[in-house]
């Protein structure tokens, strides 16, 4: 299948061609309206989408797995099928083809993903939980489309540690993402950690996050490495809802990585705080194309957005486009973007204390990244992400507790007491 050919079809032809159920008529209609993405599409302007859309893909279709293993605290989705579930955690996982689609998503591939997914993997949290969600890809060179839906019941507090494993899936195209429904007074902390190598699979992860009244979403995305991938996120904030979205990107070689997002303030007194930090090396291109939109109904909104980028080489490039679209007067909003190199005064200060240039550069790059890693409340996650970043940056990690915690004071006190 060549995705680009689908862009010229009517909704009816699309559904017939893809063999989808009538419940997905909305997705077909929206895809027909938006057309397939090209390099002229706003959301994909800085991402090399055309070769992916022109490629003749074999679509990976898996039979439902007969057995689902039990795991400690991991939900494992292998090639679009659930293969492991945590024991003892109050999580309901099922499959369904009926889902409340976002009829206003800006990304055509959100709809294509839904049309190509035979069913949606639905994960419901009825109680507080901490789980790891592993996406595992094993088939090289194919197109894999699957969708997940995450539901948080009212008043639940959930942390999802989302990881990606796909060393065997070189050259695959992954069209995936989540529809996330955070009910009233619930809190979701979603931590995404994805490191890609040159030639790995290409993930295009298109999300929709609906944050109900007084609910909170903390989104932390960590995208590292040399491959290409894009996350496209549309967030709807209802009354007194809040999202804190942090994106840390370290891209190298010929990577094309980044975030395209739309945060829409629908309810009054809703809050969004979006921060992107981008470290770009070699010929990598970073993308931060983010719109915050405040509707007429979004009075007393607070909306803040900021992107900072460090270019480590002359060939590195940052496409940063923070935008505000505001239809009311009563609000507090800001946005900004800076792109530069490492601060020479800081570098000199460290070197003037005998720290070698390369080590000083490392310290400053870590410091730049640290702000977003240290924003993680979970100390174990902080340490893991420090290690993940260092591994992506240097190939090894030598994170010491001094860099990540304050436990050494106790250690020193303990030693002194002996």
């Amino acid at each position, binding site marked *: 299948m060549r995705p680009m050919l689908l862009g010229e079809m009517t909704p009816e032809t699309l559904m017939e061609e893809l063999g989808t159920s009538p419940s997905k008529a909305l997705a077909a209609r929206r895809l027909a309206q938006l057309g397939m993405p090209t390099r002229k599409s706003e959301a994909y302007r800085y991402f090399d989408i055309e070769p992916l859309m022109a490629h003749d893909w074999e679509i990976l279709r898996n039979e439902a797995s007969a057995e689902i293993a039990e795991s400690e605290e991991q939900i494992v989705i292998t090639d679009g099928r659930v293969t492991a579930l945590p024991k003892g955690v109050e999580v309901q996982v099922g499959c369904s083809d009926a889902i409340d689609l976002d009829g206003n998503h800006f990304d055509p591939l959100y709809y294509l993903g839904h049309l190509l997914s035979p069913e949606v993997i639905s994960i419901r949290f009825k109680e507080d939980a901490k789980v790891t969600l592993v996406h595992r890809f094993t088939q090289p060179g194919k197109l894999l489309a699957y969708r997940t839906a995450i539901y948080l019941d009212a008043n639940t507090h959930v942390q999802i540690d989302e990881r990606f494993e796909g060393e065997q899936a070189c050259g695959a195209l992954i069209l995936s993402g989540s529809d996330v429904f955070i009910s009233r007074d619930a809190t979701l902390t979603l931590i995404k950690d994805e490191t890609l190598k040159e030639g790995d699979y290409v993930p295009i992860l298109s999300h929709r996050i609906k944050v109900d009244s007084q609910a909170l979403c903390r989104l932390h995305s960590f995208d590292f490495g040399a491959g290409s991938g894009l996350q496209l996120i549309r967030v709807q904030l209802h009354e007194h809802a809040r999202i804190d979205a942090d994106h840390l990107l370290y891209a190298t070689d010929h990577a094309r990585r980044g975030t395209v997002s739309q945060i829409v303030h629908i309810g009054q007194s809703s809050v969004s705080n979006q921060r992107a930090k981008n470290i770009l090396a070699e010929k990598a291109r970073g993308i931060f194309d983010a719109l915050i939109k405040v509707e007429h109904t979004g009075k007393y909104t607070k909306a803040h957005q900021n992107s900072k980028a460090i270019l480590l080489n002359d060939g590195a490039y940052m496409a940063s486009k923070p935008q505000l679209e505001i239809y009311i007067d009563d609000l507090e909003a800001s946005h900004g973007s800076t792109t530069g190199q490492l601060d*020479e005064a800081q570098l000199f200060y460290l070197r*003037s204390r*005998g720290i070698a240039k390369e080590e000083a550069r490392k*310290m400053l790059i870590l410091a*730049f990244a640290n702000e977003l890693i240290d924003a993680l409340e979970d100390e174990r996650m902080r340490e893991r992400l420090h290690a993940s970043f260092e591994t992506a940056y240097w190939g090894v990690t030598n994170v010491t507790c001094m860099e990540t915690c304050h436990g050494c*004071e106790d250690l020193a006190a303990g030693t002194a007491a002996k």
Partner: protein
Amino acid sequence: MSNVVMEIENLHARIGAKEILKGLNLQLEEGKVHAIMGPNGAGKSTLSKAITGHYDVEVTEGAIRYKGQEIVDWEPEDRALEGIFLSFQNPVEIPGVNNAYFLRTAVNAKRKHQGLEELNAAEFLREMKALVQELGMKPEMINRSLNEGFSGGEKKRNEILQMMMLQPDLIILDEIDSGLDIDALRAVSEGINKMKDGKRSFLVITHYSRILDYIEPDYIHVLKDGKIIKTAGPELVAELEEKGYGAIEEA
């Protein structure tokens, strides 16, 4: 005369297109306190930058010999590892770099350079905490980001803390008294005086004589328009106080 630890000969240096140092000559003796005094714009900070290898300063002529070696082409870290320390006039803030982690890296870089075993976290923190207490610093500064949000006095104390941990051989104090209240000035001066061991040399750069009440100099050098125009003993301070720098030029 004592051994010369640093000899600066006919030093010409510029920042951008502007020549700041115009044939400066200076000798710093081992174990002595040298004070450089001079009006604004005379080139005092440029001199400290030239000695430490700051990227702003280009040395166009002359020599800086430290312990007998020409160091103009040395990297800043190599100068530091060999024992040159600059206490900055305005220490830069580095958010995200933990103060303890930074200082331990610096201390261990020097120990490695000297062929000594690196300090482990506990040993290092024990030593650092003792000095933090001695300097009257708040203990939480150990784990804060380097200089971030520090007051002027806290930044200067942090410079002295680094100096005491790194045990350098030549200490350049650039306007160490600026922005300090009396208590901070006393604490900082006590820290500096404790470092005097008869071997270590000091170059105190200052506008005003106040700091010299606390750190007694052996020599006073007057720097004006990029050159040392007079060198004398501590008695010169009183003359400068009385007559100002203009009179020295006339003399």
